[in-house]
């Protein structure tokens, strides 16, 4: 079966992951009930004439893509595939407010042009002069998963080197509206994140890009063996059945999974099935969580894949993400079980090379 070797990564998140040596030395808490990404000085990564017009999602995406490409040591790729749930929200909002506030007059096109969801993918293509396959997925908690699945299909179809990434940004208005819609909560520190009994997540944002290769090279730090999405599974048993079948395709069982990164979001309504799944995971594997580092967003699974790669590289499961007292002796397989709004579930199987 085809594998996707991870040859380079780049990550901007609510943690200081833009510093490529970061590995839990510092862990940034949320800003009360949501997270802001820690952004770099973009002029180190993007030409000033381009930078001036870019919204934050584009800056985060282009920067992390360029870091991944640099780390992989490639100059071009066979495909650029991006995933984003809300796209360039800042530009969309800017154009929308301008037209509403001025009764559709005195508008300029820049923010409209940049509001389209494929802007990050096309900006990367423009900068790289890459005429190859270019795709943007925009499906909620499947936006990044669809990128990964597409890349694996493209490898099957003969492509060699592919850039994929997930990008999400929020704006002050967006945070304000979502908070008023009661979608956020402050964590009750007396209750563990994965046992939440209350509703509300903590929104995050960020971008993570990966250069994937069909074959292992000296740059390969880990590989993705499989990806599967589940739309609205009815019961926890459904998820477990699908998971067992998924692992079986790679001749694995849960006992072979050293670390399981679970997408607990702090909202009990969305986390319920993962909460029910946790005892089974705990029995066989070392469960861990990650959204208390990244915040919850459509493409938080891109952050999870970046984190899985880190765990494999460092062969270390830090206390800061561990759910149980168990520690793996070695990290050969990391499984990501993500969920978004309790509707979009996904499995990503990552392995040491």
């Amino acid at each position, binding site marked *: 079966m085809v594998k996707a070797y991870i040859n380079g990564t780049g990550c901007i998140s609510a943690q200081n992951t833009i510093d490529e040596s970061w590995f839990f030395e510092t862990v940034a808490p949320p800003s009360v009930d949501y997270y802001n990404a820690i952004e770099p000085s973009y002029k180190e990564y993007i030409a000033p004439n381009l930078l001036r017009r870019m919204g934050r999602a584009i800056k985060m995406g282009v920067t992390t893509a360029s870091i991944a490409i640099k780390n992989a040591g490639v100059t071009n790729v066979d495909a650029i595939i991006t995933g984003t749930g809300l796209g360039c929200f800042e530009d969309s909002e800017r154009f929308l407010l301008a037209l509403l506030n001025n009764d559709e007059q005195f508008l300029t096109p820049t923010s409209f042009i940049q509001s389209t969801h494929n802007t990050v993918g096309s900006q990367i293509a423009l900068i790289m002069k890459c005429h190859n396959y270019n795709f943007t997925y*925009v499906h909620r908690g499947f936006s990044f998963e669809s990128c990964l699945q597409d890349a694996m299909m493209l490898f099957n179809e003969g492509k060699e080197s592919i850039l994929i990434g997930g990008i999400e940004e929020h704006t002050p208005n967006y945070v304000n509206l979502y908070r008023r819609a009661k979608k956020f909560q402050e964590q009750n520190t007396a209750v563990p994140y994965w046992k939440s009994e209350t509703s509300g997540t903590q929104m995050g944002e960020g971008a993570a890009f990966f250069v994937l290769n069909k074959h292992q090279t000296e740059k390969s730090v880990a590989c993705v063996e499989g990806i599967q999405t589940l739309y609205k599974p009815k019961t926890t048993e459904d998820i477990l059945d699908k998971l067992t079948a998924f692992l079986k395709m790679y001749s694995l069982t849960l006992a072979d999974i050293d670390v399981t990164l679970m997408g607990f979001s702090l909202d009990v309504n969305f986390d319920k099935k993962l909460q029910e799944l946790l005892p089974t995971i705990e029995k066989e594997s070392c469960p861990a969580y990650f959204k208390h580092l990244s915040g919850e967003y459509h493409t938080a699974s891109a952050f999870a894949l970046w984190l899985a790669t880190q765990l494999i590289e460092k062969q270390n499961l830090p206390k800061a993400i561990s759910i149980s007292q168990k520690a793996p002796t070695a990290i050969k397989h990391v499984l990501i079980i993500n969920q978004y709004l309790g509707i979009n579930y996904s499995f990503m199987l990552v392995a040491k090379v």
Partner: protein
Amino acid sequence: MSQRIYITGIGMISAIGNNVSESFLSLSQSKTGIGKINYLTTRYKDEFLVGEVKLSNADLMDLVKDNSPDLNRNSYLAMLAAKEAVINSGIDTKDGLRTGVISSTTVAGMSKTEMFYKEMFEKDDHLNVLDTHDCGDSTERIADYIGNVDYVTTISTACSSAANAVMLGSRMIKNGLLDRAIVGGVDALSKFTFNGFNTLMILDKEWCKPFDENRKGLNLGEGAAFLVIEGEDALRKRNGKALAEVIGYANANDAYHQTASSPEGYGATLAITQALEMCGLTTRDIDYINMHGTGTPNNDLSESIATKTVFGNHIPKFSSTKAFTGHTLAAAASIEAVISTLSLQHQLIFPNLNFTTPIAETNLVPVTELLQTPINTILSNSFGFGGNCSSLIFKKI
């Protein structure tokens, strides 16, 4: 592993009709759906022409038979067209085969968000509109409306979106991940897109004139179209009937400018050439091209040059059907895939309306009257902002 991919059901709603048979009638009678603005709220109501679906949101709600307040115009259009395609195909999603819904949209729930966005800052009443603002919403509505769907995803590559949905669905079946897919796209008209295109100064205030020397821009449209595509195994299993075959597709990037096409149409040339290569056809094998042909000075010249580059002196018969429907953005490629399927079924080329004078540089003349002619293969082009270029090739059964 390389299964053949068949189109077995089509559904469509746009300015030229609320379903496929109404659309076919309009196409056969050269009757455009583009006219004065009736439903979109805008200060430019009397100044521009658009291709609106001739139904209010209340009418659409009656048609989908679902009065959920969470549905918006995008969802109504998507649900209606997808359901029509499923009924037309005769598939039963409860039969245990794996069904995917692969949709596409550019503005998603914006037509509703823009009505309530300002209010949201003052009152809590409409905050739930945010839940249906994103692109994935209408796709999941389709999946739930049809039921028993195993896989969903949504694509947004501007005006080439639905072509990529057809391509992805075909690839997923060939890769053994799905047995069949409901593929297509949807975009409802919104003040947001209307004003966006207006600030780019690429809207024609009169009927658009694709490939005409004096073309001034596009007319925006709205709509949705979906196709049921099935692998040959799934089709054989249920003894279903194919309407047409998807034999080629390609996706390339112009990498020239965020909104404009390169003068030589490099991305378009790549997409067309690679789609031909995929199915082993030569340029002589294409009987008709359903062009992207938006009516903007930039697109039509660039596409004409790309067409000449690929086809040389043997340019197939071609037309743009956007003067019927308007440019329906993410839905355009699936609307044109449905139109191409109708062309193959009825052996008809639908005309390029409003054309009088060829573009001086390229001198290409489209088909301007309804034409009955043998058509075996059709190339359909779709290009979008961000340099996204996709071409599809369909074959008669």
